């Protein structure tokens, strides 16, 4: 019996390596523009910081640079939340930009699954 337990223990340790000993603290809000790319599914919340209150645009473009959607909003100071719906968006990698007029403030990539 002791031997069987030893086998299982060795298997467990060998395959799972040391992740089981790591304690990873998950952030409660992932700031989308601080990530290089974020995987997105229908209904996900996207978070980002805004430092100045003014008209802003969220622009999603495809790989060719063609704008697919461009939505204007007036933010409040601090962390913003946007619920993204993906039904009309093409699958794959898209560019997400936060713009002020025609100036780019922040940009990142989103992966629509």
């Amino acid at each position, binding site marked *: 019996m002791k031997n069987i337990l030893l*086998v299982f223990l060795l*298997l467990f340790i060998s*395959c799972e390596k040391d992740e089981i000993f790591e304690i990873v603290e998950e952030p409660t809000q992932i700031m989308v523009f601080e990530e290089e790319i974020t995987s997105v599914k229908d209904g996900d919340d996207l978070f980002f910081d805004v430092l100045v209150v003014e008209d802003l645009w969220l622009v999603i473009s495809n790989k060719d640079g063609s*704008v697919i959607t461009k939505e204007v909003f007036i933010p409040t100071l601090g962390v913003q939340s*946007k*619920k993204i*719906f993906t039904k009309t*968006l093409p699958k794959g990698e898209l560019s997400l930009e936060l713009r002020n007029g025609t100036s780019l403030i922040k940009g990142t990539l989103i992966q629509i699954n």
Partner: protein
Amino acid sequence: MKLFIINFITTLLVCIPTFSQTITTPTPSELPIGVSGLSVGTFLVEGYNSTETLKVSISISNPPPGVTFDVTSTNGVTRDYGYNSWTNITSVNFTGTQSNINTSLSSIKLNTTLEVGAQINLSVVVSKQDNNVYYNPTNGHYYRSVTSYVDYITAKSLASQSTYQGEQGYLVTITSQDEQNFIVEKTSQNNIWIALEDIAQEGYWRVSAGPEINTLIKTSNGQFNGNISGQYNNWCGGEPNNAGNEDAAVTKWGGGGCWNDLPSSGYRGGGYVIEYGTSNDPTQSNFQFTLNTQITFTQNDILYVVCDFNFSDSVDEGLFSGKLYSNLGDSSNPIWNVNTGTEIAVGNGRSLNITNDISPPTEDGTKRITSTGGSVEWCVIYGYNSSTNSYRVGIDSREFDNKGVDWENISNLQLFDLWDGPVTPRSGNNSTSVHWNEYTIYTDTQIDFNNSDYGQYIRNGGSYYALKSNFFFEDNLNFKPQSFIFEDIEVSSVETLIDDIITVSDVVAAFNELSGGGLNGGYKGDLSGVELQNSDVNGDGNFDFQDTQKLLQFLNGGSGIVETLSLGNIMRIIPIEKYNSINVTNWKVLNTDVGLRVDIDITTSQKVYYPKFMVTWLGDINSSHSITQGTESKYSSMYKSKIYNEPSITCELNIVKVNDDILVTIIIPPNNLNLKGSEFRVAFDNDRLDFKESTQESDMFNFNTVRSTYIKMGSVSTQDNTSLNTGATYKLFFKNKLKLDNTLGLISIIKTELIDSNGNKINFIIE
């Protein structure tokens, strides 16, 4: 300790990463005899990184004499050293990315011979590309070419320390002429050390590595002295000669194809080759990261029918499938009966093998005559009658004696390789005094007597040809008329398809074509014959302003170009021979109907068919989604040349929330581009939004069609003096059903099109 080792091994086994790459192969099948260019089907290699370079080996193992294959798509792939052709070959190794090799593999075409029953074992092997590593499809071994100049002892030692894909390496052993040829032809070095030595006993040459280690192949020096029967020897003239104590062997001596003996130590050869693999059966390969598959095709004297449906690249063929039917009625009153009921998908292959779906032929109560060469002239063929396009044929009536066959009940005749097809009895010509039962062969093509394989049995009598022949009688078999009928697709897919096919650029092209001669006055001449057929959307046999009116109605969401939106009302499938003959003057006469059925004529006298069809679409005036008749069409060539980047126009898009509504605004600024048409497709999330209304402001006719998941809208010029030079504004209002704040992605622009007066597409940039 024992337990610990077991645990350790078990752990290793469990944790070894799995080899997740796969290859999907075509189904083994029978192939017709004596046919070149036979598609074998679709291969799909999956699981590799898309940018990774892969090595592929295609081969026919033990090919029946004369059987070869071609690889017809070779974009992005490179043949290995020593392989010099893509056509009429029995093996080829090449490299490329996963995507490119999939295209190449699926383009394999087999060339069969006349040998009935011969089996063709087509092998495909895929692995990651390693420089200087070569695959031998005959034995399934890999060979690594090492260019280091070392002596024999060192080469043997280094080779034995090498592994490849989990297989132990060894200095190359050459045990067959095929392997010798492979080393000679597929490696670029000369004077290559091989695992063969007589160190233990002078003149006794033994294999010194690999699966055949210690095998004695020769018992005396000299080219042929002591060569052991059944063992492979390939010495150069006068070798081995042990000149100065030479106990090891090289191949490709001096660049040739034979062996020489050289000193085993202190003498550097021209490099060496490491061999990997133990079994000589490629299908028993143990290489960890190699995909290995073999498909067996059998040559047979069979009916073989492969349809080729040519869709434009801008149409997704994956939408389409169909079934094969037989007409149990007649042409005026057809009764379509599905044959096997197998639904055959067009997919990306486009070629549909329908051989197994053809209903077998049935007896029709008449007889067929077949012939072989004989010693008596029992048959005569008189000269061609060009006024009736026919031949008069006589068969001696004594050939019918005691056969129980009524000469008038003959409907089909095979005369050597001269004619195989229907005949009509000539009444009143079977006089017993002349002994001839006579028939008429109707054919537009004259028989080529001079190039017949049966020349020794044919005599040219001046006004007739006499045939030394024997005749046989059998029941005549006929195929019912066969047709491939496409399945219709669901209405929402038809909607999207037709919205993709018929856009504002088609309408601009139609108006432009009619501007040549005024109202119903004539054409400008920019459209090909097929495009003119596509333009006749109301099907009255003319292309005129009634058709452009229908097209406008279609853009504007009216009754549309067809009463009922279905695939069968817009799809046009034209046999290639007819398609190629349609031009701007005969298109009305050669009218081709829209519909889902194509007829495939099968007769018992022919075995192999490659019917080819071109797919065009009603309303596709600029051929953007149809097979183009390139040389005649101005619009198709311009549209497809993708002149998208210059000139361009920057437009404005804004999506803004107004209370519970969402307002979408698209603005085309004032410009000097003489735009004659604009079209946008605005997709919306219909689970969360309701479309309310739209407004359009321009100097042209504005159109608008509401579909369940998108709005199609834009403007088109119906008169020469209108354009979008002053700009245009389009607005759409949507009701937010869920009253959600802070949303993103509920609306997107999925298609845009701007077209100028010359039919050029203008690049549409949104800022």
